[in-house]
């Protein structure tokens, strides 16, 4: 005897029912979609903003502070804030001979010597500045100092020539002290032998790195001239290395440590305090975004609960007509998912457009901070990061969180008995 077969609707049929249902109350659907869309947009934009900010900080660290790998002596590292010049690298070995060995390490794209020292300016309006002794020719081949315009940052005059009594200063220092190209910049610094050194270099260039700490407080001078002034006898205070692959610096670190020997600190750029701190705090941002998404999902949860309540007789009818509990739950769940997908799609589209525009036009942080962010290794502008990964991630995150939140209210429909539902 043939058993009667009940033709059940497939997934497509249930999806179709769910999709039709969401338009039964257009205004309510509109609110749900808008809530999810705003949350997804916020998450995408904020993630792009944070990624852009972290990327900017990493770039500042790599450009001005550490390169990809940085080596200093342990004694210097212990007193880093004072920028002591009494502790040259490799026991005071001449950089010219050390450079050849350092550059020969596998995976090294460039190795640059740097000396930083505090100076007291004779001018009372700007009392202190940092002398930054670099090999300008070599540095400019590797680094773009202005991270906003992506150029060397020179806005007036020229860069100091090697071996000369010349310097370049930032726009902020120039304004504060009333200096112009051609002026002298009398200063005092302390040498490696703890001697007062007086110097009167001529300002030949004004730069704008869009990095407040340098624009306001750095005096760029030729590496060899500063080394001579500080009695470093050709030695360097630190070396910054640039790798062929910035993500793989362990080999260079090991090679450099072996070359320099004991008493040195060799670090990769990922070990920088700000970089590692921000990377670690990424998890916190995800938690914040998650909370935001959950709050937005409350509107969907509320809608589904209301819908179940409103359609209680309908649910009874569906059950009486033979739909299983799982199918009924799936209809409501798909309804909730449809709202989430629709909202997330709109949020993604708006978020993608906003981040794309933000990636083209950098945000000027000076407007918000008034120039008060010079203690952070941060450029004055932020490029919001536009990547398909962030947008796809934002969409998936939005749908997943909303779906998870709507699962429980959807299950409520499963516990309604058809006979009781029809009686109401």
């Amino acid at each position, binding site marked *: 005897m043939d058993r009667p077969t009940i033709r059940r609707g497939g997934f497509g049929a249930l999806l179709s029912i769910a999709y039709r249902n969401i338009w039964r109350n257009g205004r309510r659907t509109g609110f749900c979609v808008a809530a999810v869309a705003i949350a997804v947009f916020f998450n995408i934009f904020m993630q792009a903003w944070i990624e852009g900010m972290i990327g900017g900080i990493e770039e500042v660290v790599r450009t001005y502070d550490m390169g990809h790998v940085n080596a200093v002596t342990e004694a210097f590292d212990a007193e880093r804030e004072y920028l002591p010049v009494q502790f040259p690298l490799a026991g005071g070995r001449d950089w010219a001979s050390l450079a050849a060995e350092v550059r020969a390490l596998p995976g090294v794209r460039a190795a640059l010597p740097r000396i930083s020292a505090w100076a007291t300016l004779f001018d*009372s309006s700007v009392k202190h500045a940092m002398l930054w002794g670099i090999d300008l020719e070599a540095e400019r081949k590797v680094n773009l100092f202005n991270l906003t315009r992506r150029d060397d940052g020179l806005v007036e005059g020229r860069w100091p020539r090697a071996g000369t009594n010349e310097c370049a200063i930032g726009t902020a220092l120039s304004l504060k002290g009333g200096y112009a190209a051609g002026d002298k910049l009398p200063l005092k610094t*302390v040498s490696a032998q*703890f*001697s*007062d*050194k*007086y*110097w009167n270099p001529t300002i030949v260039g004004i730069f704008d790195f869009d990095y407040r700490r340098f624009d306001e407080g750095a005096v760029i001078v030729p590496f060899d001239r500063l080394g001579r002034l500080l*009695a470093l006898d050709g030695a360097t205070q630190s070396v910054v290395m640039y790798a062929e692959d910035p993500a793989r610096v362990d080999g260079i670190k090991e090679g450099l440590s072996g070359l320099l020997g004991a008493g040195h600190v060799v670090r990769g750029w990922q070990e920088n305090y700000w970089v590692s701190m921000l990377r670690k705090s990424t998890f916190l941002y995800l938690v914040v975004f998650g909370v935001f998404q959950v709050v937005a999902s409350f509107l969907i949860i509320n809608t589904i609960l209301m819908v179940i309540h409103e359609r209680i007789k309908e649910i009874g009818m569906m059950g009486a007509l033979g739909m299983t509990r799982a199918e009924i739950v799936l209809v409501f769940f798909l309804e909730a998912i449809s709202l989430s997908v629709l909202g997330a799609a709109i949020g993604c589209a708006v978020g993608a457009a906003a981040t794309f525009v933000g990636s083209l036009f950098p945000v000027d942080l000076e407007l918000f901070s008034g120039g008060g962010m010079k203690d952070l290794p941060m450029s004055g502008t932020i490029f919001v990061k536009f990547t398909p990964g962030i947008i796809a991630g934002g969409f998936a995150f939005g749908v997943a969180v909303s779906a998870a939140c709507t699962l429980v209210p959807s299950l409520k429909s499963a516990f309604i008995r058809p006979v009781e539902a029809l009686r109401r």
Partner: protein
Amino acid sequence: MKRTIAACALAALLAIPALAQDAAAILAHVDSNEGYSSISYKGTMTIEYRGKRFVKTFESVARGRNESWVEFTNPEDRGTRYLKRDGRLYVWSPDTEEVMLISGHLLKESMMGSDLSYEDTIDSETLSARYVPALKGTEDVDGRKAYVLELIARKKTESYPKQVLWVDAETLSVLRFELYALSGARLKDYRLVRSELIGGRFFPVEFEMRDLLRKGSRTVFAMREVQLDVPLPDSAFSMRRLEQ
């Protein structure tokens, strides 16, 4: 009883001007001990800072409190010269080969990496002229009886608003002094290492200075071939000599 109290109060009242007089007299002695019409000497400055030791040598001449000349002779600083004249401090450095005026905030900087600042070296007036002394009693300093003088600055612009001096009761040499900021924080410590009887006075020829704001730092100044009150030509303090 009332008579006793009254007598004590009277004695105390009478003692105040006497003690004040003593303090002023002691400070005047200190000034005369360390004063000179001119001086010529060779010096060594040994700086110990954060476990490192730097020795600097120099030659110096001075006339009164207003004119002085210092030229460093150790290899690292050879040729660096300072001239104090007309209340101004000039420096000539081989790195710049030009005369530069040290003024303003620069005067508060450490001189040649030592525990002394430039402004510590350019005081033109005696302690008696700059401070009001008060005798705070006597103490034992390294087995020697010493008067303790508290000096309060007469002018608000003084670098150190308060000083405390320990003056040898016998020789009236300053054995020790402390320099204080307006906040009451102790900034610098001085200890006499050795004084010599030169021209009938005990003249400090070796002393130690500590800048308490610099962790693990001290500077020992030692003078040799000291000649006091010798005639010195005007050319010894000329700008031309500085520029040569």
